[in-house]
């Protein structure tokens, strides 16, 4: 079959406008497929990972936006003594937009030592010392820095908050890279004195073997009669609840991904059918020369797969480059879903391209292989 590659390529080149349009259509469709895949991947990573099930988030009861949840910071000391709890992080959250947004900025203020201990982040530039020394210092996630074109040493303002970039960090968790970390007391005082001694949420790390549901129930029972009642959920459940509306939307748009695959299928199939119909006589000549019907079948399927794979491959590459470059994310109520490229999505896209090419080629290839030679030779 490799000896026939020049014939296959030249056949596609003969109708290059048609071939290039098909390739570009397949490319755009697979780009969207990758984008949709990365959104779903981001949501899944946020709600289903190991840490999401073994970490609890304590929030003020019946509050949803981080701006409205205000817990006494000393709840952390009370919780630290409870059985099953290894550590408690008091976290102040500030976001410039509580609603779903593609450019929400989320600040998290927490004690520096606990930030180093519990967040898997690595500084790409700047230093921990620089962060520790300066009250208004901030560590900026790689995605935010890329999106806002920030570098270490820059000073920037979001809403009422002005910070100096003490470092840019990357993380194995894509969602982390959409956050900005500051000192807890800085964020508490950033908008006046009213928030001093208050935090938005408490992040509770459990001891090995502790039952998250039992500990969560004990926490809520502890503060039920306190000054501020709480609602405690696993981090995964908290994020899923916070993003419920978005998750529904994301659940719906996965059909868009399937639609893209369907689009490539019909596009490539149409082109291949046209190509076969243009070459009824040519295929009859090949059969006269001794090409077996199955060889004709394979020639047509290979053409179809080439169109789909080249287009899909370009779409996947462009999609991955765009996702890596753009640092896009969507945030709602302080929780960020990051859109990141991944090998999983790239491989799924590549497999979809090849499979669609194969499927799209079968019917026209069958038609070409079943051609009766003599009537086809009379074809104009």
């Amino acid at each position, binding site marked *: 079959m490799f*000896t026939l590659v020049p014939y296959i390529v030249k056949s596609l*080149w003969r109708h290059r406008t048609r071939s290039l349009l098909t390739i570009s259509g397949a490319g755009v469709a697979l780009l969207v497929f990758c984008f949709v895949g990365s959104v779903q991947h981001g949501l899944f990573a946020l709600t289903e990972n190991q840490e999401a099930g073994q970490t609890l988030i304590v929030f003020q009861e019946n509050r949803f936006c981080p701006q409205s949840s205000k817990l006494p910071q000393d709840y952390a000391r009370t919780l630290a003594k409870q059985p099953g709890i290894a550590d408690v992080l008091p976290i102040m959250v500030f976001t410039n937009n509580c609603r779903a947004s593609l450019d929400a900025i989320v600040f998290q203020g927490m004690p520096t030592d606990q930030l180093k201990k519990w967040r898997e982040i690595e500084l790409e530039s700047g230093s921990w010392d620089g962060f520790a020394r300066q009250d208004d210092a901030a560590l900026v996630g790689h995605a935010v820095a890329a999106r806002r074109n920030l570098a270490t040493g820059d000073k920037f303002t979001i809403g009422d908050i002005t910070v100096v970039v003490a470092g840019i960090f990357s993380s194995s968790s894509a969602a982390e890279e959409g956050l900005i970390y500051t000192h807890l007391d800085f964020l508490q005082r950033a908008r006046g004195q009213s928030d001093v001694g208050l935090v938005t949420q408490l992040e509770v790390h459990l001891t090995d073997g502790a039952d998250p549901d039992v500990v969560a129930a004990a926490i809520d029972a502890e503060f039920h009669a306190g000054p501020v009642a709480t609602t405690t959920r696993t981090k995964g459940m908290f994020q899923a609840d916070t993003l419920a509306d978005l998750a529904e939307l994301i659940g719906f748009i996965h059909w868009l991904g399937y639609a893209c695959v369907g689009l490539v299928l019909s596009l490539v199939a149409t082109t291949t059918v046209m190509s076969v119909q243009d070459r009824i006589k*040519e295929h009859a000549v090949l*059969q*006269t020369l*001794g*090409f077996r019907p*199955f060889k004709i079948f394979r020639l047509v399927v290979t053409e179809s797969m080439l169109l789909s794979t080249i287009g899909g491959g370009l779409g996947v590459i462009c999609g991955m480059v765009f996702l890596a470059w753009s640092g896009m994310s969507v945030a709602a109520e302080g929780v960020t879903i990051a859109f990141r490229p991944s090998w999983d999505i790239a491989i799924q896209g590549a497999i979809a391209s090849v499979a669609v090419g194969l499927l799209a080629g079968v019917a026209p290839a069958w038609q070409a292989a079943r051609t009766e*030679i003599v009537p086809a030779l009379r074809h104009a």
Partner: protein
Amino acid sequence: MSLVELIDVNKEFKSGEETIRPLDGIHLTVEEGDFVSLMGASGSGKSTLLNLVAGIDEVNSGHILVGGTDITQLSRGKLADWRAANVGYVFQTHNLIPVLTAYENVELPLLLLPMSAVERRKRVEVALAAVDLTNRAQHYPRQMSGGQEQRVGIARAIVANPTIVVADEPTGSLDDDTTEQILTLLQRVNHELGMTLLMVTHDADAAARATRILHLERGQLLENGQPIMPRALRTA
């Protein structure tokens, strides 16, 4: 043993309610090295007979033996393999693959045979030299005249050294000078390469170049004005 033997071959078509039988119990033997021309009126069935011998059409009944193989008994796939190894087909309208160069067109039949790239190149060069088109090897069909295209078609037909070369009105779409060149070339293929040729034509001058001239009339094959009898009757 004859190279080609047709035994009681029948072929019929349906045309509406009417049944047309262009070949009605045909018997024919062709010896190795023969150059046979087949004449007849339009629609007499001469191309049908050629296509049957070339293995691209099916008989309704009867047998066609080529080199001892009864090709009417072969499956579609096996028949394709048989054509690749045994038949060179020269079309009236050349039917070169437009996206391939003259060289690549001639090379096509060899891609189906077990052969090294070096051997393939050698054979293609010899075939192109035989039709005097070495200097046009990298030209595409659209860059050649009708006569040159037909010469490429002949090179493609002979390159695999087939058992038989069939030519369906090979000069039908050419002017007089080019017709003369092509007929001379076919004669050389027969004389110098020793290949067996079966040529359909309605041109008496072209037919005269052959060593045997057959006429197809009302479903019967005639030679020298007499019906061709089955081999058994002839030997008796």
